[in-house]
């Protein structure tokens, strides 16, 4: 570990802290309807689409609208990907995509997962990238924000089950947050050298005299929304490790900030909406502590490298000056980023359900690779996906309030609303989904030959690969451990299902919870109320998240990365 490595992590933390409040205020104004500078565009969209912006939907209507929108857009994408060979903007004449992969990809982008079992540059035409995948990058991010907005309103107001209007929330999220943000980011990326063209691929002669095909494409625009909407699907197969996607340390830094900017701002938005700003900061703090803890662990183990190298007499220490070397574990990492920026990127992208990668997580040390898995298994609530991070965290907050709230001698209440069996049932559905689906599907894959066939490695590392795939898809993260060959019938189908479940099985109870809470009367807070803005609360929240979230996965993790770690120290690798 080096001071410059820590300085990067520190600088990143400070920037995240600084953007939280202004972005939070901006998001608040988007969803309370007080922002109007694109009012004319908004009105045109509503008129064309036949939306009545004054309609205040009951949570069931809100849910149905959300499901309809997702289903229709997913089917449209499936059709377009199948028919790719007959559509324009395909200079490389790439053919239609096979059914299982088209299904998986459509599910992947609709659910904000962006798991990719294909290589972008050899599979997707420019039209598919720009019309289908980029569309979902905007839309799925906005849908996540819609669900969060509904929950925020349900907690803040007493409105008899009415949570706002899905269609206006969707439109406003896209035109006020994601399009303006993506434009600014894309311009910054282009300035730094990220590609943006519609040219056919270039064939160039290399210094060795060989010929190499350089993939081209509208990369910067895709890259911007991929980070801002915590989507993570790369234009190229190598994702953000590719020099045309992420050419410089500056773009790398900017990408990480772009991943966290909306989720961090959402905590401020929440605090403002429920008129309890300190509670919003308490959530931010809990998220930040878990983020920095994960980043530190990953960085520590990546910087330490593989003890077997040291045992062979290799100098694994970082050094500067004439003998400059990064030391540690550089396998699968880009030299222009180094260990700290790679470890930080892996933490940020798995904290926030983004899934972009600038290094190959499969090549991390066992415990360095454990952190991304755990981050996702906690439920993508360490800042989390856009919208999804906030509603995931609020679920855990309500669970915490329920478990510990009794300890102050009152029946549990959260921000003045009683939490009783109706609400708790929804929270428990949310909490139950991850262990049932992730552990269940992983267990099935470890006993079926079709599941075992895809492994790139055997032993504990192979288990980690399978576990990572189901964790990442269920958590709608989309980052890959790599190693696992997932473009098979078995994995295309099961992972596609995991993504759909991970998205919609969780959203249904969240919207129901929002509806139920909006029916509760608001009780005045007093000195007898459970405090939700103290350091103690932050600790308690982290404790519940770790014990209820992470400990469930402790048995399987101990057979995967944890045993691999100890075996590596005993001189065995897989």
């Amino acid at each position: 570990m080096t001071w410059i490595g820590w300085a990067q992590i520190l600088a990143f933390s400070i920037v995240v802290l600084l953007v939280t409040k202004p972005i939070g205020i901006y998001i608040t104004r988007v969803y309370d309807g007080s922002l109007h500078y694109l009012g004319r565009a908004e009105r045109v969209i509503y008129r064309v689409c036949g939306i009545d912006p004054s309609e205040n939907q009951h949570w069931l209507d809100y849910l149905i609208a959300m499901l309809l929108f997702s289903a229709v857009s997913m089917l449209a994408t499936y059709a377009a990907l199948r028919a790719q060979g007959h559509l324009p903007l395909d200079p490389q004449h790439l053919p239609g995509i096979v059914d299982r992969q088209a299904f998986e990809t459509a599910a992947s982008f609709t659910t904000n997962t962006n798991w990719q079992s294909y290589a972008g540059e050899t599979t997707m035409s420019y039209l598919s990238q720009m019309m289908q995948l980029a569309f979902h990058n905007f839309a799925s991010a906005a849908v996540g924000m819609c669900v969060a907005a509904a929950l925020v309103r349900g907690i803040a107001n007493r409105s008899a089950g009415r949570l706002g209007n899905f269609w206006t929330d969707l439109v406003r999220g896209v035109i006020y947050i994601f399009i303006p943000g993506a434009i600014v980011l894309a311009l910054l990326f282009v300035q730094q050298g990220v590609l943006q063209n519609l040219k056919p691929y270039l064939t160039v002669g290399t210094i060795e005299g060989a010929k190499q095909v350089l993939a081209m494409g509208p990369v910067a625009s895709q890259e911007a929304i991929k980070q801002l909407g915590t989507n993570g699907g790369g234009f190229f197969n190598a994702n953000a490790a590719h020099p045309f996607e992420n050419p410089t340390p500056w773009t790398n830094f900017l990408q990480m900030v772009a991943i966290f900017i909306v989720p961090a701002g959402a905590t401020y938005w929440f605090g403002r909406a429920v008129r309890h700003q300190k509670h919003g900061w308490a959530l931010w703090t809990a998220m930040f502590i878990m983020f920095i803890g994960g980043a530190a662990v990953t960085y520590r183990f990546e910087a330490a490298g593989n003890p077997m190298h040291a045992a062979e007499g290799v100098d694994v220490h970082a050094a500067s000056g004439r003998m400059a070397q990064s030391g540690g574990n550089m396998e699968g990492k880009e030299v222009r980023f180094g260990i700290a920026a790679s470890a930080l990127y892996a933490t940020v992208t798995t904290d926030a359900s983004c899934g972009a990668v600038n290094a190959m997580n499969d090549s991390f040390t066992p415990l360095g690779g454990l952190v991304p898995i755990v981050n996702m298994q906690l439920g993508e609530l360490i800042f989390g996906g856009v919208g999804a991070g906030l509603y995931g965290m609020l679920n855990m907050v309500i669970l915490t309030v329920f478990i510990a709230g009794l300890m102050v001698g009152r029946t549990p209440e959260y921000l003045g609303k009683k939490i009783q069996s109706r609400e708790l049932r929804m929270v428990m559905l949310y909490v139950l989904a991850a262990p049932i689906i992730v552990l269940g599907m992983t267990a099935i894959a470890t006993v079926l030959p079709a599941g075992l066939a895809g492994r790139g490695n055997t032993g504990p590392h192979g288990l980690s690969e399978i576990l990572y795939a189901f964790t990442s898809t269920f958590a709608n993260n989309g980052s890959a451990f790599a190693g696992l060959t997932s473009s098979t019938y078995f994995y295309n189908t099961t992972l596609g299902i995991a993504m759909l479940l991970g998205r919609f099985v969780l959203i249904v109870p969240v919207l129901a919870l929002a509806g139920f809470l909006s029916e509760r009367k608001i009780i005045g807070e007093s000195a007898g109320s459970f405090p939700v803005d103290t350091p103690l609360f932050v600790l308690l929240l982290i404790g519940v998240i770790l014990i209820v979230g992470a400990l469930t996965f402790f048995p399987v993790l101990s057979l995967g990365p944890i045993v691999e770690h100890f075996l590596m120290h005993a001189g065995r690798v897989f």
Partner: protein
Amino acid sequence: MAATRRTLLDPTIARAAVVDAFRKLHPRHMVRNPVMFVVFIGSILTTVAVARDPANVGFNAQLAIWLWFTVLFANFAEAMAEGRGKAQADSLRRSRHETQARRLRNPANRDGIELVSAEDLRKGDAVLCLPGDVVPGDGEVIDGVASVDESAITGESAPVIRESGGDRSAVTGGTRVLSDYLVIRITANPGETFMDRMIALVEGASRQKTPNEIALTMLLSGLTIVFLMAVVTLAPFASYSGVSVSVPVLVALLVCLIPTTIGGLLSSIGIAGMDRLVQHNVIAMSGRSVEAAGDVDTLLLDKTGTITLGNRQAVELYPVSGVALEYLADRAQLASLPDETPEGRSIVVLAKERFGLRGRDVGPQLHMTFVPFSAATRMSGVDVPDGELRKGASDAVARYVTEAGGVMPRDIGDIVERIAREGGTPLVVTERNGASPRVLGAIYLKDIVKGGMKERFDRLRAMGIRTVMITGDNPLTAAAIAREAGVDDFLAEAKPEDKLELIRREQKGGRLVAMTGDGTNDAPALAQADVGVAMNTGTQAAREAGNMIDLDSNPTKLIEIVEIGKQLLMTRGSLTTFSIANDVAKYFAIIPAMFLATFPVLGALNIMRLHSPQSAILSAVIFNALIIVALIPLALRGVKYRPAAAALILRRNLLIYGAGGIILPFVGIKAIDMLLVLAKAVS
């Protein structure tokens, strides 16, 4: 009810509970508690494994025994809590006799007596009770006045007066008439009487899960499913890794992870909470109202009897100008000499202590006749040979003076107002020697705030509970007393409908309200309040409207009721937190033990350095079972409770039950492991 406080683990109750613990193994009972049902199934699976796996008989048998103990311990805890209630119900039942009743065919003139069994009485029947009779059923006195021994219900041996009309007309079946006679209109059929309901409540026969208990059960069931998933999927993961894990070991892991501690103790906590109320001589009509008591934000307290002592005391004398203070004292004392009311005595005492005036003999020697207080004159005093002495409320005295042709001195108005503003009641003293009476001055009668009330209200405030004093006094007096007592707010010149209005207003503001009441006109407010505590001495209407009944009829007890409600909820929360926190250590005991044979490197996770895989698993299971027993007293007694702000209480409980819940099992499992090793070495 005999208010005997039973020791926490009464041996006779414990013996009966042991038997009940086995009886409760019936699947129909077990299935009501999802967490313990899983343990129950696991115990059966493990027992089956003992028979089917000859290689590991010893280990599996030990596991099975301890798993069965886990189930039995939880059943025992519940049986203990129920047993305490049952014992109380039995003592209530014993006090019921096979009663004969004198039914009246013609109640108006107490005529047409026929002797029937109390069992045959129906609602609307009229009965006559003579001295020595046991009141045959709940009813309303429609004629007569009598002293009644209610010790069977209240445990209070002093008899109380019951009379027709007014707020003392309710009588309870099972009480005994001591003097005079009563004609009673029966208001409850046999089996539905207050005593019957009380027995059912105390016994817990009609116990239903409260809303919070239902929600908590859902949480515990959910967590059980989570851990079930973690353990069930471990089988394929283990076989992938080439590890063989037996069913008993998986069961052991599951039982250790699911929240058995709170799952096993949850119902006993609820029963014990009701029981604690009974110990305080309060009967809650439902568990729901006990929970509501914990949530209360506003307490409505009647001034008289709750905040202040029932009677006022003279503390100061204010003469009008032209009258000497000593003279006023002398006349005031003389006017009060034969007055036996506490106020009257206090005037005599004040004059004696402040001015050295000795109490004089009363009666014929002084040729004094006592004129007692009457509602018509609203004055009292004495007639002496040379005139009259009177004391009374200022408006009553003013009427008396002006009617007799006298004039009220100008400064008496100021004096009266000053006393009222200070929270006192002014008593104006007049003397009549000749034609017209002369006003001498006023006595300052002061409400005496009960000792320690201010501190109690401060503590309530720290807990976020507002206290509102209800009084019929004028706003000036009320404000002064409110200030002295330290209540947050007051409602002066309160009429019953004002009370109801206040409750509605508080509830609209999202607050839960508790109040006490006894009169029929309190009934609507009692019904509207979230926690309405009716005094047992109150009317039938009041007792029907409230959701709790205080057998001691002590309004101050409202504060204790709130505290018991809070303590109940705290106990639940603390044990839930403790139970979940325990999991950390259990993972570290069992996971390395499971995989050690295949992956010796995982010994690094064995941070407790437990002796062997088998002893590690066994230690965790034994700890898990024993902790239930160890916590039974806590579940029955409730966690230690000290009123404070929520943040402070949370910090304290989290430290003990959260941090303690993480640390204690590390210590406990290690200790059990060492004992197991020792036991093996010895044998």
